[in-house]
């Protein structure tokens, strides 16, 4: 067809006009650090594993998860999930139930019998891990995956540390813990129980260990000076909780008073209730807002009938009774005595005032610095003695399972580097994907899934697990509530909203790239990216 000159044009010929020359700013794809990942003490790539869970690929999700944390089923129960506190979705409706999805994945792994991949190589190096708590298990796991031979020496009769001897069964069923420990041991980690390391240098030399990671935990209960009559029944929380694992259950009486405001105080009070106490009363110096225990735990305890007496200190203990002084908070929130006293009945008083570390194994080791009852470590988790690393409750930090697991991972990376004569170089963190970087319009309204709770009678009378897990539908739903903050999740918005067709879609899983020949730099893709994974940068001048 001979087409009339100029009147009729060939289709699509405007490709000859490179409108990219109009641009003064260019969009670039970036990755921002999601706040959940940033907040996770265990350094989990939460968004990463949620991504797979969103598509229903739970095994892949679990595998991504356990790259950082070998204990998802435990973590899904006992972690206080700072990730959820940081979750941007919290500003939209409610944060994503990361913890519940983690538990689902952990339970699914146990149910399906998923195993860790065997280490690809063997380095021939031997590492001693002291303590089979969360930190020690985590370090052992990561070291084993890096091809080192690992032996855990544990003073107690069972692995798990505080996970077993500090956390009640109703929060962490022991078969879950056992399954996750067993999976770590399946990697070839050797566990020696009932073996207290008395002298670390000696133990290392004897065993021919190239490095050691110390994670003995904090098992010694802190005492407070409370004038007490001889007949007063005063015990510490650590012993109470530990004895729950033995044959003989602790005898606390019908009216139990717990002194303290941390999670351990809550655990003991709830345990007492389950052991048959008609009254379990927590006495705490300050107010509920100031209480270190997590609010949801406090709430659950209250639901179960635990009572809490705020702004009170125990001044004296006698047989069957306590003397309590009322306190007030001063301007700075510090409790001050009022001089008002009262008496309350109590068959026993449980002190939950914190724990100390047994540092006896370090006696005589050169270069160590001990302060406030903890071992000081460098940022690479190494103590002052080369080759000896430490983590968990025995180093200065928040004392949670998740932090401990994080320590184990971090220490393992550094031990691995040290063993290779290198220094571990952490990957630089991206800028955090804060809420203002997102375009939340695009996320559908979806309230958080509520996890099922055990009925109240059983909560008050048995040690059955209180909080249930999600089923698959719920877990999928919850995973899909993730906003994928800061990282492209292939929603195609940039591809769709570009008026100049200057975004090239590379195909599923491959993301996008800009066609700068035609991109005019309008910035629509940036504005309409739901998750803040594009930014504008000035063109070079």
């Amino acid at each position, binding site marked *: 067809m001979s087409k009339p000159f*100029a009147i009729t*044009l*060939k*289709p*699509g*010929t*405007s*490709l*000859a*006009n*490179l*409108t990219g020359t*109009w641009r003064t700013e260019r969009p670039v794809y970036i990755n921002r650090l999601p706040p959940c990942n940033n907040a996770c003490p265990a350094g989990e790539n939460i968004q990463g594993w949620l991504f797979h869970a*969103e*598509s229903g690929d739970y095994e892949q999700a679990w595998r991504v998860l356990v790259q950082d944390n070998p204990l998802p089923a435990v973590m899904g129960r006992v972690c206080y999930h700072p990730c959820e506190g940081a979750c941007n979705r919290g500003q939209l409706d409610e944060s994503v139930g990361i913890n519940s999805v983690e538990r689902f994945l952990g339970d699914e792994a146990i149910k399906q019998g998923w195993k860790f991949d065997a280490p690809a190589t063997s380095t021939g190096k031997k590492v001693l891990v002291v303590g089979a708590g969360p930190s020690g298990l985590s370090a052992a796991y990561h070291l084993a995956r890096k091809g080192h031979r690992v032996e855990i020496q544990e003073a107690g009769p069972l692995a798990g540390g505080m996970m077993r001897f500090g956390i009640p069964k109703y929060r962490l069923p022991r078969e879950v813990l056992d399954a996750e420990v067993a999976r770590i041991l399946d990697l070839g980690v050797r566990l020696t129980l009932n073996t207290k390391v008395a002298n670390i240098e000696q133990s290392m030399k004897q065993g021919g260990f190239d490095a050691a990671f110390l994670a003995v935990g904090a098992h010694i209960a802190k005492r407070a000076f409370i004038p007490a009559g001889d007949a007063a029944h005063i015990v510490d929380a650590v012993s109470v909780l530990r004895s729950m694992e033995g044959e003989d259950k602790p005898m606390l009486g019908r009216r139990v008073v717990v002194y303290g405001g941390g999670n351990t105080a809550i655990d003991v009070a709830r345990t007492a209730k389950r052991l048959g106490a008609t009254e379990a009363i927590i006495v705490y110096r300050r107010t509920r807002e100031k209480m270190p225990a997590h609010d949801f735990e406090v709430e659950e305890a209250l639901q179960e009938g635990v009572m809490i007496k705020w702004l009170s200190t125990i001044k004296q203990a006698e047989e069957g009774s306590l003397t309590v002084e009322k306190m007030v908070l001063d301007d700075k929130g510090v409790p001050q005595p009022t001089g008002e006293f009262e008496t309350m009945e109590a068959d026993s008083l449980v002190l939950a005032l914190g724990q100390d570390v047994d540092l006896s194994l370090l006696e005589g080791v050169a270069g160590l610095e001990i302060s406030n009852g903890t071992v000081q470590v460098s940022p690479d988790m190494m103590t002052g003695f080369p080759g000896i690393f430490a983590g968990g409750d025995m180093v200065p930090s928040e004392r949670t399972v998740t932090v401990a697991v994080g320590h184990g991972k971090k220490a393992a990376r550094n031990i691995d580097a040290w063993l290779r004569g290198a220094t571990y170089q952490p990957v630089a963190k991206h800028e955090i994907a804060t809420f203002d970087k997102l375009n939340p*319009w*695009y*996320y*559908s309204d*979806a309230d958080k899934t509520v996890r099922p709770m055990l009925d109240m009678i059983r909560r008050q009378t048995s040690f059955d697990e209180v909080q249930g897990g999600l089923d698959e539908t719920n877990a999928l*739903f919850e995973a*899909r*509530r*993730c906003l*994928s903050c800061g990282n492209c*999740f*292939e*929603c*195609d*918005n940039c*591809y*769709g*909203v*570009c*008026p*100049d*067709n*200057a975004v090239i*879609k590379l*195909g*599923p899983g491959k993301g996008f790239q800009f*066609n700068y*020949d*035609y991109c*005019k*730099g*309008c*910035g*629509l893709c*940036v*504005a*309409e990216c*739901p998750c803040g994974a594009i930014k504008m940068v000035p063109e070079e001048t």
Partner: protein
Amino acid sequence: MGFQPVKFYQTGTFTVGNRLLAPMDRSVQAGQTRSNSINSGHRACQGCGEALGARYAIDAAMAESNNQLIAVNATGCLEVFSTPYPESSWQVPWIHSLFGNAPAVATGVAAAMKVKGKTDVRVVAQGGDGSTTDIGFGCLSGMFERNDDVLYICYDNEAYMNTGVQRSSATPPAARTATTMPVGPEPGNVFGQGKNLPEIAMAHGIPYVATATVADLRDLEYKVRKAMKMHGARYIHLFVPCPLGWGTASSDTILMARLAKESGMFPVFEAEHGEVTGVLKIRRQVPVEEYMKPQKRFAHLFGTHARPDMVARIQAIADRNIRKYGLLEDEGN
């Protein structure tokens, strides 16, 4: 209404694509093989809503017609920026004739297809608000009345942008244009009774009338595809913000469309044979100020010589839309 209900998938149907959806449930725009009916290299301004809207609409029509489509274009920005000799951005058979005759030209094309028995070839006519609501109004009404087999799409950016932002009968009250300057006691465009073209189209009793915005792609595609499934005269009024004419950031084009809808300034609905059959509810209602403030064409209503009285009158227009079309969830409908 507005789009096929989709199971909750992270972003529902608000984003262009959704990797969690089955391919057949995804938008045309998410597809790697979408037609790109209007190709790269066109000379629209940065962030042009009309270029975007045209690709959205024509790609959807292409998909629904199995690429058997002919497009007719009125004079206007879209025509000028897409076909400056010697280059054309169109990848569909396309004709531009005049400012005011796109509906009639489309009628002619449709008649030719009918007479030649090419029943699979479908015809779309398109124009801006000037050509649709003003100069081409007569032809449009004629096309409607005859119920010619044409889908007419109006890209409404509320003024004559091609000629330098002059008022059209789709320009909102109080808006600044080159012919309604923000001076005098009633600055900007007059508060008239308006010219509601979708309702005028409905008054013709044609099979399908719908409004849509570039901020609700799925809804737009659903409407274009629905319209393309029908025969006879069909009308889609597509709201396409203009960064140049409105004085907004080029990156805010979709935001503006969204706020127009969420404030009630632009009701999004569909109608069959003259009766409203569905509305797209407001999802997160905003006052009209939130929509107006980022736009320089309304700047004279805010700031030092603020005119809250005029803003209130515009809010009243939005409120009336909300009542009339039942745009809020709790208002029935």
